[in-house]
């Protein structure tokens, strides 16, 4: 689909919502919307797409109280604004949208959380990503380094970039809107997504990408949607296996889960954002003892997060139950850079080769 076609479709979808309300009111009905309930209890595994998406539970929001009515009013204003932005070929950030509402009187947002959430509702209602409405996130994109050649259609024209040869040491930064990206060619065997910049630099310095044909993706913590979208597309369209390498603590497992299964907050986008085939490399709780890694005690918050993961459908596998229970017993966590205690080369010469060949990746 061309950029123009995409914009047209987004515009149509938005107007359809408004048209629904128009019809409701014309028929003497109080206008309303229906949305899936967005809680952990209402996400389900979709066998077909192999990702977790919202289940059947829905809630209805009708304009029968001042609060709900104002919510619909705000949505109407947002739809009006987005329709115009699409028509003019402009875009804006979520934060700008929040400030733009300043002039909307009663439809003005009270806080950015509210406008962000409303945009998510629109994504669900239209089955489109917010990028399709020309809304940019503030979130920082991640970086790619490796034997991959891609094409980015920018506002200033089309750029072809090779992610080893045409970039500096910081790699190729993933733009906010990845619908403008096309992968042209690659010479890789797999993609390794890495939680920290330090480990990303270690792999680059040690020439891990060249030695094993790896595309390195620096997640920079919890990955932005654009990064997750890139990972999925590398997996789907380039047929490359994706592995995820994080710290060994509950928060990092959530990074993996959001790459592989999608997040609860954006379960409506899971089919676009999640990479079900993504595999977890480590740090595994068992690695902490196996490799005698320097570790820290779990905090109370850590323990609570692990316990919450035990009830999270995305971690309902034997592997994760075993690892999480093991960690709860040990009461320890380790970071990925803790491998440095065994020498700077250990992670690239020993740990990753062993682990990746166990996993059948190399």
């Amino acid at each position, binding site marked *: 689909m061309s950029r123009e076609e995409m914009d047209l479709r987004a515009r149509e979808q938005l*107007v359809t919502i*408004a*048209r629904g*309300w*128009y019809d409701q*009111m*014309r028929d*003497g*009905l*109080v*206008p309303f919307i229906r949305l899936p309930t967005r809680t952990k209890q209402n996400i389900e595994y979709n066998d077909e797409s192999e990702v977790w998406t919202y289940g059947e539970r829905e809630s209805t929001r009708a*304009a*029968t*109280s*001042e*609060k*709900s*009515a*104002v919510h*619909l*009013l705000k949505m*109407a*204003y947002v*739809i*009006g604004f987005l*329709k115009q932005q699409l028509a003019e070929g402009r875009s804006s950030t979520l934060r700008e949208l929040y400030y733009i509402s300043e002039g909307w009187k*009663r*439809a003005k947002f009270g806080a950015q959380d509210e406008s962000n959430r409303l945009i998510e509702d629109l994504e669900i209602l239209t089955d489109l990503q917010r990028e399709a409405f020309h809304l940019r996130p503030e979130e920082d994109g991640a970086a790619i380094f490796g034997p991959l050649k891609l094409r980015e259609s920018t506002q200033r024209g089309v750029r072809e970039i090779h992610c080893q040869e045409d970039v500096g040491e910081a790699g190729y930064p993933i733009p906010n809107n990845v619908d403008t990206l096309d992968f042209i060619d690659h010479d890789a065997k797999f993609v390794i997504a890495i939680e920290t910049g330090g480990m990303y630099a270690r792999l680059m310095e040690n020439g891990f990408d060249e030695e094993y044909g790896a595309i390195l993706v620096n997640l920079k913590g919890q990955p932005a949607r654009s990064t997750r979208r890139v990972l999925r597309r590398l997996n789907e369209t380039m047929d490359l296996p994706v592995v995820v390498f994080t710290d060994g603590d509950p928060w990092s497992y959530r990074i993996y889960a959001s790459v592989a299964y999608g997040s609860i907050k954006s379960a409506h986008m899971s089919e676009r954002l999640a990479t079900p085939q993504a595999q977890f490399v480590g740090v595994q709780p068992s690695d902490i003892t196996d490799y005698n890694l320097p570790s820290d005690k779990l905090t109370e918050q850590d323990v609570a997060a692990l316990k919450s993961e035990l009830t999270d459908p995305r971690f309902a596998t034997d592997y994760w139950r075993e690892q999480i229970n093991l960690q709860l017993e040990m009461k320890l966590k380790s970071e990925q850079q803790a491998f440095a205690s065994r020498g700077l080369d250990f992670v690239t010469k020993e740990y990753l080769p062993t682990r990746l060949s166990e996993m059948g990746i190399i």
Partner: protein
Amino acid sequence: MVLAEDLAKQQRSISVAEFFEKNKHLLGFDSPTRGIITTVKEAVDNALDACEEAEVLPDIFVAIRKVGTDVYRITVEDNGPGIVGKNVPYVFGKLLYGSRFHQIRQSRGQQGIGISAAVLYAQLTTGVPALVISRTGANAPAHRFELMIKTETNEPDVLVHEEIDWDRTHGTRIEIEFRSTLAAKKRLLEYLRYTAVVNPHARITADIDGELTVFERVSSEVPPCPKAILPHPHGIEFGALKRIAAVSAEPLDEFLVNSFSRVGKKTAEEMIALANLKPRRKVKGLEAEELKRLLAAMQQVKVPAPPAQQCLSPIGEDLIRKGLEKEIPLDFIKSRTRPSTVFSGHSFIIEAAIGYGGKLPAEGSGQILRFANRVPLLYQQGACAITGCVSQVNWKAYGLSQAGLPAGPVLIMVHVASTNVPFTSESKDAIASIPEIEREIVLVLQELGRELKTYLNRRDKKKQQDDRARAICSIIPEIAAKVSDIVELPPLDTSPIEGKIMRKLVAKKRTSDGTVSIDVHNYTAREIAFTLYNLSRDDAADAEPKPDFVDAFDGEYNKVWKCLLAPGTVWQVTYSGSGDGSIDLRGVEENQKVVVDLDV
């Protein structure tokens, strides 16, 4: 070892006056500041008690005047029945002398200590004798005394006794002078204000160093004076039973009926049978073992509760409300008087009230007013069972926030009326933790909590209805406008929605480009007559239709239209103007109308 002999020589009896002189803090005379409040309290308590006994409406005058460095003269005068001349010295000049100690009934003072203790404190600090004037009736002369207490013997020491003319036909006046300060003036006024709250039949006039404050009565009905009753069989302890048995000449069956409340012939027979005793045996002759059996039987047999309506004098729900409302502006108030019940054989009644809103501070802990036998408790709030009970109730369940005490604009008043109020100390500041009393307090507070919750819910429901009306009548039209614009279709009329949902008479005012329009839709199924009031700065000279009536004052115009509107129809008026001010529909029931000002 002859030491015991030496020691024996030093052993002697101690007079009560000596005891309390040395332990004056036990009676609330621990500081000069506090002494003044304690004295006023004791004198006013006595005055109220006396007026109650005489069934007169109390008219009490309290004066405090500085008479020297750190020396104040305290005067309390009442219009009570007076005290007969020969008893005056004992009432004021002997500790542990009084009429109410042995009576089982509610009264403020009881021990016969308070006012004599004030006299004792005065003679200790200034040496000035107490002045007492009392007159028992128009036909009797007034007696004037100057008196002190002989500490070693706890006997009165009358320095002057004379008959004088007095302008009161009956009543008592006492003047006491002691070392004190007026640092607690605010607290003193608080004491008097709360005394007025729980004694709504009393007028109290206070002249504090020249500053006059009057607490007017709100009821002209003298509360009935509680009458003394016999002890209740469930509330007597072994020692007491043994004592009254020893002085009785009666046989067992008569003894039980004549010496106890609520014991009739059948009940007595049941008790005697259960104790396995003979009915006609003289109780005087019973062995200790037999008495113990009798006591056990007395406590086992079911007996109605003591006749509390006779021995207790609760304030009553109505007067509590009036008393509180007079002193404290509130949005909501409920009061409750619980049925009487019993602890250790003492009857008691819990009364309580809860107030909300008004000028109570919106933040911080609520206010707690504690009373015992119609006397406000000012000190040691933290140590009092009432406070404990208030904290114990789960106020969150009743819509209040809570941090120990309930928080927000709430006032809680609790009154414990009993034939024997269990204070934690003789200074009568706090009520001791008695499970039976605590249970009753918690129950009454929960009852009031539910009432408060109902009020708060109703308030919230009203808010919710307003909320819905705003959504339907004001916001949906905006949504419709925006949506029509987006879908590029003709503007929508949302009045069918209004009608369907509201099914009421809906008045809407809206101003745009200098034109004010007021629509009234009749969405009900019947014809409705209404009057529309529109108060604003616009004179509406060009109104169409013209108002039926216009009233102008202070630059504002109150415009009135009368109309009869068929079901399903609309009435409208428009005029040029700024659209400020307000609209109101009259002549229509509250739940039949919705008024929305779209300019707000």
